[in-house]
């Protein structure tokens, strides 16, 4: 096939096509619509990008806020005075109140660290700066099923005096049980708290808590009666 023949064939073939039915006004209108659509798409895309950027910024900022290093645990200078030592001696004398099946260790749980800084020695009373009206002892009681934290608060004598002068208490019969309150709550796992006012007006609070990271323990390791026994240990 010669090139001239090919050209002639192509011309003949192209001439078969009738005049195209293309409306120039429709072309112009379609071009305008296309341009408008492109502008809208660009604006929408820009909006999406801005929203995504803002979301990323907020997420990053929020995460950075949450992931920031924890505030340093305040260094608590717990003091041990003679009264604290006396209370520790009284508690040590009644060590039998803690069942022998429970191992006693320093309480290093987060709640106690927040209050007392470094884990205080177990079952030793200290005076915390932020709680100067009482002495406090901590302990971590452990067995195979988990652990609970024991906290004992004993008010100082100057707090006891107003209570002791209170007519309500002085008017009670001599055998009135000192227990004024006890509760069992699950707010931080399981917690049992008992507060007693001795007949001399001293307020003693004993609590035992099972933290949420030891879900396997079926119940707090000390019963109401075992906690109650601590109330009468302390005097001045």
């Amino acid at each position, binding site marked *: *096939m*010669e*090139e*001239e*023949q*090919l*050209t*002639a*064939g*192509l*011309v*003949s*073939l*192209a*001439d*078969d*096509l009738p*005049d*195209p*039915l*293309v409306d*120039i006004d*429709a*072309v*112009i209108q*379609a*071009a305008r619509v*296309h*341009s408008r659509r492109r502008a809208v798409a660009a604006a929408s895309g820009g909006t999406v990008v801005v929203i995504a950027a803002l979301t990323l910024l907020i997420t990053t900022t929020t995460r950075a806020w949450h992931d920031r290093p924890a505030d340093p645990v305040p260094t608590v200078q717990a003091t041990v005075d003679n009264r604290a030592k006396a209370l520790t001696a009284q508690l040590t004398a009644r060590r039998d109140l803690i069942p022998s099946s429970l191992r006693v260790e320093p309480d290093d749980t987060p709640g106690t660290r927040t209050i007392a800084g470094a884990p205080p020695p177990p079952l030793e009373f200290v005076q915390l700066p932020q709680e100067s009206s009482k002495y406090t002892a901590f302990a971590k009681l452990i067995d195979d099923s988990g652990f609970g934290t024991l906290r004992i608060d004993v008010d100082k004598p100057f707090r006891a005096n107003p209570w002791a002068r209170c007519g309500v208490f002085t008017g009670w019969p001599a055998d009135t049980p000192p227990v004024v309150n006890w509760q069992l709550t699950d707010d931080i796992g399981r917690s049992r708290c008992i507060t007693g006012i001795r007949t001399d007006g001293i307020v003693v609070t004993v609590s035992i808590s099972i933290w949420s990271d030891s879900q396997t323990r079926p119940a707090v390791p000390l019963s109401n009666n075992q906690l109650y026994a601590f109330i009468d240990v302390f005097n001045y």
Partner: protein
Amino acid sequence: MSLRRTRDDEDRFRLFAAGAVGPLARLAYLLCGDRHLAEDLAQACLIRMYQAWPRLDRQDALDGYARRVLLRCWLNELRRPWRRAESRTGIVPDLADDRSDPALGVGSDHVKDLLRRALAEIPPRQRAAVVLRYWSQLSVTETAAVLRCSEGTVKSQTARGLTALRAAMTRLGGNAALIRELST
């Protein structure tokens, strides 16, 4: 340069489009082999031309630019997935077969159909090179500008296209005497 179209711009575009739509549609028809698609391609090409019109400052190069845009539109059309999946065999073969009736075999309709089917069988870029060189009568340089390739590539694509076209026409039943009818 301002991209806003003036009334003068629009008038000039209308003038250009009115004269260019026919050749563009015919070029598209030779490329794609489908009349309706050819009209669609010509229209798509003019839409793009209108959008770019304020940027086209060389009025003497409009035809070349339009061919380039048309070629882009056609190649884009070929790349569409639904187009890829479609199997095209040309129009319904309702023309007589020259081998069964020699008297009709020399009919120009049959020869044109043969050429159209043969064109459809060669690869798109070779087809474009052959059509631009032998129908649009573009030089190698002009064809290279439209195809956006080197002149050497145009020459090789054209040569391969011609070889493939000859082979296809022979395979489809054409003969030298028949093809010569085209030039008469």
